[in-house]
């Protein structure tokens, strides 16, 4: 059996990149840099989605996540003066705590996942055939049948509205403050 098929190689590369950039994101001493690494991570994840033939999702990931959220974060970093140059010094104790949590947690979860035994064998190519049509996605989001998501869609709109209003309310400087 051939392990090094094209799709496998792509997966390994993506996985390695995701993990690498992920680690860099949380270890980089400069905050702007770590934002950049975050961007790369998200980018690679989008690649993963593409590999799985979820183009729309990949596009959303790129536009909203990489494009929106990371930019938002970068703005924030820039807005908050002098933060970009701050040297990030990790306090030893917290790092150890984090490491303990991460290592114990990942070992636990990984062992559980490995022991679970998902489908022993499958043909990725078979699965890949079904591309997700945009129409299908639209219908799924707008339908009211089972496995269709009109209600969550509407609900999320309320959430977004509320978040916008809330963010504005607390981010704006009050008139009284100016006086």
């Amino acid at each position, binding site marked *: 059996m051939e392990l090094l098929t094209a799709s496998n190689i792509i997966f390994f590369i993506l996985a390695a990149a995701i993990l690498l950039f992920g680690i860099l994101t949380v270890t980089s001493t400069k905050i702007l840099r770590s934002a950049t690494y975050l961007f790369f991570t998200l980018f690679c994840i989008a690649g993963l989605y593409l590999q799985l033939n979820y183009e729309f999702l990949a596009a959303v990931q790129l536009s909203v996540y990489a494009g929106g959220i990371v930019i938002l974060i970068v703005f924030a970093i820039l807005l908050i003066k002098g933060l970009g140059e701050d040297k990030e010094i990790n306090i030893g104790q*917290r790092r150890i705590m984090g490491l303990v*949590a991460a290592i114990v947690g990942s070992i636990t979860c990984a062992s559980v996942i490995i022991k679970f035994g998902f489908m022993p064998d499958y043909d990725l190519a078979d699965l890949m055939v079904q591309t997700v049509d945009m129409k299908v996605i639209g219908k799924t989001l707008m339908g009211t049948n089972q496995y269709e998501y009109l209600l969550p869609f509407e609900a999320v709109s309320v959430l977004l509205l509320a978040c916008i209003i809330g963010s504005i309310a607390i981010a704006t400087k009050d008139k009284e403050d100016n006086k």
Partner: protein
Amino acid sequence: MEQLASLAPYVLILPLCMFLILGLFGKKMCPKVSGILGTTVFGIVSVLCYYIAFKYFFSGDYQIGDTFQKVTLFNMEWLRMNQNLVISIGFLLDPLSAIMLIVISTVSLMVHIYSMGYMHGEGGFQRFYAILSLFSFAMLGLVVATNIFQMYIFWELVGVSSFLLISFYYFKHSAVRAAKKAFIVTRFADMFFLIGILILSYYTKTFDFGPLTQVTDGHVEIVNSTMSGVTLLGFPIISIAVFLIFLGGAGKSAMFPLHIWLPDAMEGPTPASALIHAATMVVAGVYLVARLFPIYSFEAPHVLEIIAYIGAFTSIFAAVIACAQTDIKRVLAFSTISQIAYMMVALGVSGYGGVDGLGYTASMWHLFTHAMFKALLFMAAGAIIHAVHSNEMDAMGNLRKKLPITHITFLIACLAIAGIPPFSGFFSKDEILVAAFETNKWVFAVEYFVAGLTAFYMFRLYYRIFWFGEPENGYEHEPHEAPLNMTFPLMFLAAVTVITGISWAFGKFSFTEFISSDYSSYEIHTHWNIALPSIGAGLVGILIATFLYLEKTGRPNKAVSYIKKPYIWAYNKFYIDEIYLYVTNNIIFQRICQPIAWFDRHIIDGFMNLLSWVTNKTSEETKEVQSGYVQQYAWVFIMGVITIVLLSINL
């Protein structure tokens, strides 16, 4: 019968009412009124008692053949425990209770009269009469009890009225201490009494004296059928039960080692001493044993033997101490202990039925005579104290001219107690000695010696008061004879002492006709072979006393110097008080109560406080968990998740 039954309740009700009236409203009454009221009402009660006793003994209605019957005049259910065990308040009339009625009513009436003079002008005069009524009520109730629990009830009441009388001068430390001591010691004994009752009633399922003293075929059937063969720790349970009951009696009757309260009880007013601590209450123990005599005699003869030994020991022990005391009331107190022990001995050596029961009869006879002359002695002592304002012998002397009536009556009583014929004491004591002689020679020997000793210390007392010589500093106030209401009881009781003695001597009157162990009369005669030596012993005692104390000489001191050690021991009552004090203070209070209180405060309570302390401390110590760092919160969060996962998955 109906007549008596209709009268009998008043014997109890009248004193009780008097107690309530004087107790509640006494404050509002003029002292004199309350005294007269109390005395009058008690006079009525006495008349009733005499009438009942008279009817019982002489009407013949209550006799079948020559056997007196037990009659229950009334019996009212007071408290029902279960189907079998009922506590009633009733009136049991039999020779025993009839005699006791006479004794109590006589002495009590005399004390009532006497107190009018003696207590005159004292604060709390009304209170005194109230308690006197209470005591009379309790004592009468005790002797007419139809069941053992009624007896216990009145027993306790007697105890408390004794407490109240001893603590009459409640502002005096010594009186309070004495009262406490008396109450607690007797209470301690009562506990055994109660346990004895419990054991007895557990098996026999009755409190009633009727079945409990019913003799059939040489056994008390109800006891024998239920308790024989049952043992506890190797002792027959019946012996344990009746011994415990005897212990109750021993407490009231001041048997060694429970005698310590009686001498101290003399802190009370003298009339109270005369009534309670000489004539009536202290013989309750004797009465108790006599009441249950069939059980002792048939079912627990060994206990009876023990009683005899305890009695013998107590009598000599107290007599020895009496020789060394200087407080006249204390001398009398020890003399009382000794004499009551005599009665116990008599019961202890007695058999059941006919002449075998001589001890029983003698005991009751001695109880009767002793009550009379001992009350007389106390009241006389009261009159003396009244005159010289002191209890100490050193403050007295040469009073025979100043207090003539007191002197004569005191002398009569002394002769009676010393066992000199023809005074009543001689005869009763003689019978006791006879009974002892026939049963137990050792006991007899002791009692014989005590008879001599009694004569000695009584005459020592007599001489020290009435002869000897005036105290060194003379009298502050010239002593003078007491008023009539005090001397009348003296004369009356002296007359009783003389008359009963003489009438016995002339054979006009035989106690055996009235009371015997099986309530059937029998004939006895004076046993001169025993009587003469006992008179001799008495005379020797008197002679020694005369030699030492007739005149003020150095002889007493000289005599003491020969026996210095024993004298000091006897003077200090063989340090029994100190032992008790040590036990109560150092062992019970210091070694039991204090540690328990400490344990409670520090261990039990401390544990509760520790719990709260731990809770608070934990709360304080764990505050770092809530450190304020959001990252730590997340860490705890995720570690919590991981821990729960690890705990709940199947590895």
